[in-house]
């Protein structure tokens, strides 16, 4: 089954079994292996990519459902030589250890900051009718869809807070 996508700004076409998830299409068909498979069931967040401007679990989406969509993966955020500000902050704050969940964390955080900017409330927003503040508690809750067994959580929060405080990802 043919699917046309824009991935990291480039038009890509894949020809794949309809069973192919967006995650496996990126990894196996487009060789974009930065996006990781940690559980394949939407329970860890390692596969997070930004589709249509929003963070999603690419393991729980079929590639063929994304015909015509724009997808941004970790490779689209920065290369080792041209890291985004958030990627740099993850390195500086040691926002990872083994690094396996890291692409998902960074994609998630990149899109999460836009959600925060847009004023979306979260589970820890005291009054959902009010605009959320940029706090450790808010960032921590909003990043809870990305497991990290090495538990760089405090460092991940520090990295995000630094960049969010500066107002750019």
């Amino acid at each position, binding site marked *: 089954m043919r699917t046309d996508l824009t991935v990291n700004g480039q038009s890509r076409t894949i020809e794949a079994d309809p069973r192919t998830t967006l995650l496996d299409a990126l990894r196996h068909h487009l060789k974009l292996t930065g996006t990781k498979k940690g559980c394949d069931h939407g329970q860890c967040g390692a596969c997070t990519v930004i589709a249509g401007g929003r963070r*999603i679990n690419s393991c729980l989406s079929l590639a063929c459902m994304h015909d015509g969509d724009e997808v941004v993966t970790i490779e689209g955020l920065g290369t080792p030589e041209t890291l985004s500000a958030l990627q740099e902050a993850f390195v500086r704050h040691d926002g990872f250890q083994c690094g396996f969940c890291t692409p998902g964390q960074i994609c998630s955080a990149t899109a999460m900051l836009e959600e925060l900017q847009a004023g979306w409330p979260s589970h820890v927003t005291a009054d959902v009718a009010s605009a959320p503040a940029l706090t450790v508690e808010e960032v921590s809750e909003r990043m809870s869809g990305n497991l990290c067994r090495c538990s760089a959580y405090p460092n991940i929060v520090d990295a995000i807070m630094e960049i969010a405080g500066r107002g750019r990802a």
Partner: protein
Amino acid sequence: MRPFEFTRAESAADAMRLAGDGATIIAGGTNLLDLMKLEVMAPQALVDINRLDLGDIDEAEGGGLRIGALVRNSDLAADRRVRDAYPMLAEALLAGASGQLRNKATTGGNLLQRTRCYYYYDTAMPCNKREPGSGCQAIGGITRLHALFGASEHCIATHPSDMAVALRALDARVEIQSQDGVTRMLPLGDFYRLPGDTPHIETVLVPGDLITAVLLPAPAGARQTYRKVRDRASYAFALVSVAGVLDVEDGRIVRPALAFGGVGHMPWRNPEVEALLEGEAPSVDLFAEAAARLVAEAEPQGGNAFKIPLLRRTLQAVLRELTEA
């Protein structure tokens, strides 16, 4: 995942026709694909409805909201009207899943989430919900997640949704179009079915039906809350949840509506408890009586017996919170 045919529906009629022919509708897919990978569900055909025009939230006549079936959980939670008039619904949505999942999961799909029963998820285990007539292996097994209310000897599973619990307390109705052009509006209590001896049939939907919207009446009460209790701070299903809405007029509780998650085969509601509260002055004793009434019918399974005191205590705390000045 078994092979399937994939079609993208261009219109609602298209979707209903294909679904009528045996295709399973896929929207967000966050639960369906999870289950298909394990072959717990194995549809022969999928019809993708994501491009249908069901993604808006409109103001309905009489002051309510009409939420399109494809409105994503995150958009619904972030909607200004929902946040102002139905904060409990926003809270329930935000207590569920993760940011990533909420960005995909839809209003219609959320209602149709399947149970998280461990035995349903493992195809090596007998399960009447997955394979009618094979038995219920959860009974006598690990039952931490299981139901206190509405279970049967054939199935003791719970409904996992947070959103649906809030909707039930808000008296929401599900708008369903069927292939013959008829539109039905069903309150959630009539939409879901108890397991009885057919736990595999969870709703009244028939092939060819399409959920097109959820209708919220004007908010029944200004005092609303959704409280979820779970095994970790975030990203876990409810052990117990309580959705509550009421008003206090002249020192009396009026129009209380309470729904409970994590404890029933469907989002649970008990009219007796609400009747007991209606018109009464809030008091600790009243709340204790209401909680006792609620749990009086509970049928624990062993591993979930803790949910009885947990539910009792959580309900009382919710009532205290809602009636405090």
